[in-house]
């Protein structure tokens, strides 16, 4: 058997890398401002990745590259969802970016590099692989935030994102080095074994854990490490905000799973306590600050902070229920925020950003269908059935209560109650107020269709959430039990 054929679990990553290089070169020869060929190539690449991931799927867990890379059901599911998300991001943002002259080859290549970073993170079973994936993702995103060079807000956002991101990476690396000092290895499974067999220097281990959790919290954007989130969400072009706010959350979930659950499971009593504080603070600060926002992108940024807090509740509850519910939460969150950012881009037009709350006034009179889709998305974010957001909250709460943290569950529902107010305000603006602008909404057929699918998916998954829930639970279960 040739060496190449043993690499099959990483075929998707390899294919993507090759294609990115091809696209980079092909794009040099294209002068068409709409970049249709590049765009089609990117979408085909994503389709190809999906096919490869499905075809190379193997039951069980496969390790590769001296245990630095792992392929299991969870990684395959998360990767497939990431392809889908990135593909949706591109469909939503194509017209928006073309109008603004930002639909360049670089944008697409950087998007794909970010995706590659996510894939590496998702499949990492070594702290260094994780770090490498994270940096690939982050560096691509820093550049993308600054894509609109002449916009002061964007540049400022990129600067903030870069400096704080670098700080977080530093914290993470420092934590990893301490972990290495304590256990003598950086392999996820070996770290777990070493801790279980007793570590000489407990203090070093705990310090390392604190740094790692802080670094993770930075990347997830949870309080008190959240300061970059609103500025970056607000400053970046909406298409980039959408990318930052969606697919990387899936990778971040995988990151949490690989480091905290697979690697540092024996220290769960320590890190779950830290996560309680992070989660409660995030839900509090996120939900309360969101009320005060007048810019929808900033509001969604705070809402993300609150949602990430809720997601951490699932993680800290532990067990298949806890991790499964956190994964389900991440997936549904991505679906909802795709729709919400997609709506902003749909309503925007040349020279006009529909990103303040007032731009949504009277949407029901301008376009009842879009208003209805946004209604579904907002109720879903608020966690009102029959939308899928309810089941996300429901399954996390089930895990939290199952783990015996009833006061935590009550705190969580109280903050989601506060959160319901600002989602409700959007519905109020759309349905109860008179429109401020009567400019007809020019919907592109592709993104118009996609937003309908997206909104209806939120409803359909809300009526039939069972399958997706089970997929998440099974994926998490397999990758944990078979390690």
């Amino acid at each position, binding site marked *: 058997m040739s060496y190449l054929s043993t690499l099959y679990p990483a075929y998707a990553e390899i294919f993507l890398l090759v294609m990115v290089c091809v696209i980079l070169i092909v794009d040099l020869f294209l002068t068409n401002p709409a970049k249709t060929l590049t765009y089609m190539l990117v979408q085909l690449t994503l389709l190809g990745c999906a096919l490869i991931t499905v075809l190379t799927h193997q039951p069980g867990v496969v390790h590769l590259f001296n245990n630095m890379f792992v392929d299991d059901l969870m990684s395959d599911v998360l990767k497939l969802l990431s392809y889908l998300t990135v593909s949706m991001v591109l469909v939503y943002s194509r017209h928006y970016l073309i109008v603004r002259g930002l639909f360049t080859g670089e944008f697409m290549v950087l998007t794909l590099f970010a995706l590659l970073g996510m894939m590496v993170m998702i499949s990492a079973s070594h702290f260094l692989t994780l770090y490498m994936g994270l940096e690939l993702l982050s560096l691509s995103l820093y550049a993308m935030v600054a894509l609109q060079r002449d916009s002061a807000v964007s540049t400022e956002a990129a600067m903030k994102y870069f400096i704080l991101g670098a700080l977080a990476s530093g914290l993470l690396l420092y934590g990893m080095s301490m972990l290495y000092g304590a256990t003598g290895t950086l392999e996820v499974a070996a770290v777990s074994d070493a801790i279980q067999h007793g570590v000489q220097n407990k203090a070093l281990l705990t310090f390392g854990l604190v740094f790692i959790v802080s670094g993770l919290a930075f990347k997830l954007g949870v309080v008190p490490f959240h300061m970059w989130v609103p500025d970056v969400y607000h400053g970046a072009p909406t298409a980039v905000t959408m990318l930052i706010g969606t697919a990387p959350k899936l990778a971040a979930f995988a990151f949490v799973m690989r480091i905290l659950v697979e690697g540092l499971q024996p220290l769960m009593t320590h890190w779950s306590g830290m996560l309680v504080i992070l989660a409660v603070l995030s839900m509090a600060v996120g939900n309360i600050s969101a009320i005060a926002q007048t810019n929808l992108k900033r509001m969604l940024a705070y809402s993300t902070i609150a949602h990430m807090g809720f997601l951490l509740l699932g993680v800290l509850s532990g067990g298949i229920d806890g991790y499964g519910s956190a994964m389900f939460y991440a997936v549904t969150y991505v679906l909802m925020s795709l729709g919400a950012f997609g709506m902003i881009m749909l309503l925007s037009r040349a020279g006009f950003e529909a990103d303040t709350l007032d731009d949504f006034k009277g949407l029901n009179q301008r376009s*009842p269908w879009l208003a209805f889709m946004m209604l579904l998305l907002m109720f879903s974010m608020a966690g009102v059935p*029959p939308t899928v957001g309810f*089941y996300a909250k429901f399954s996390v709460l089930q895990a939290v*209560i199952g783990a015996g943290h009833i006061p935590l569950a009550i705190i969580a529902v109280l903050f989601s109650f506060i959160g319901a107010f600002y989602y409700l305000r959007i519905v109020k603006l759309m349905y*109860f107020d008179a429109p401020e602008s009567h400019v007809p909404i020019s919907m592109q057929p592709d993104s118009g269709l996609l937003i309908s699918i997206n909104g209806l998916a939120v409803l359909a998954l809300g009526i039939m*959430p069972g399958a997706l829930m089970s997929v998440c639970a099974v994926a998490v279960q397999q990758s944990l039990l078979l390690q």
Partner: protein
Amino acid sequence: MIFGFHLLSVAIWLPIIFGVLVLATGDDKNAPLARIIAMVGAVLGFLVTIPLYTGFVRDTSDMQFVEIHDWITRFNIHYHLGVDGISVLFILLTAFFTPIVVLAGWKVIEKRVAQYMAAFLIMSGVMIGVFAALDAVLFYVFWEAMLIPMFLIIGVWGGANRVYAAVKFFLYTLFGSLLMLVALIYLYNQSGGSFAILDFHHVAIPMTAQIFIFIAFFFAFAVKVPMFPVHTWLPDAHVEAPTGGSVVLAAIMLKVGAYGFIRFSLPIAPDASHYLSGVMIALSLIAVVYIGLVALAQTDMKKLVAYSSISHMGFVTLGIFIFNAYGMEGALLQMISHGFVSGALFLCIGVLYDRMHTRNIADYGGVAKTMPVFAAFFMLFAMANSGLPGTSGFVGEFMVIMGAVKVNFWYAFLAASTLIFGAAYTLWMVKRVIFGAVANHHVAELTDITLREKVIFAVLALAVLGMGLYPLPFSEIMHASVNDLLVHVARSKL
């Protein structure tokens, strides 16, 4: 079974499907078509619930017309429907009111007709779902989904202060519901992994936990009933809602709260229910007496009827928490009667409002001179609201008072005061609005009710009188279930 479908599923989904069809008619160019489809859906929706009554087996407390399918297997959640003697009548009541509200909004609603009609049809299906659900998660989904159309109805078609009222309504009810969700998930864990409501009834729970569960349910249900002191959303919501919204709110949506007490609080936490019954009775009596007095002071007709609703619902919760058959059956009959009567009164106010665009009592006077037919109907419903024997209002109140006498004379005494207060505020309003000299030229120009309005009122008058004179068809259906419930509640679960 209808064409191979289970009856309850048809009752739930038929109005919803028609609601979607109505939405599909699009903007107001097609309003006449939207109205007709809505009416057909509403009438069909009512017709399919009739076999639930005729086919109901009276002498068992078991669930009937049961339908069960797997839904979310991961958490053992089922699509589980069924009715017993307690819930079946509310399904009929809900379906009965849908054609009435569609008809009531026929002419008055001119903007976004399709959305208005669709909201009512969808809400009707969802409310039937609340009464038919036997799985806690299914119940919760319907329970919350009910808020969305009502929120939109108040906010889009409501009065001047509609936004405040709609948001207040939504947040008040959401707050209670979320705590209930925590309680339901706790029960799921306690029952060893089942969300079936009937399984919850048999889970042994320690006293402290029972009290917490009771409190969580209390927040969810008391807000909906609404009980004193969480009633303040109701007058706002009623005043701002369009007529149809007020009717559904008063006739059906308040009942789901009391239904929740009967279906969840009592059987799941019987010991806590007994332990806290003193508090519940006190709150109920405060509602009856104090809110009755508040109603007396109102100058806005809709507000007056809204406060009267809270006062009457106090009777219902009193009847539930005195734990005897008179009280419980009285409470259920009172709920149904209040549905008819308050619904009718809000329609009457709607009729006046459509013509005069004011709800102020002071702007009226001598309406009987210009609208004699309307005045006769209004008088009848007012009498029913004050509990005149021979009308439906009397039956439930009388039974609850009978039940209360058995427990404590003073409960009964205070409760009976409603017969005075109720008569006072209702009849005083009628006197000022209907009788006396014609107040101003607006009243002088009033035209009497149209045929469409006459049909609505005649149907409701028939219901009010029929139930008042011959309540047996309503009460016999609930005997077995009520007795079984009382036996269950008397057993300790500690």
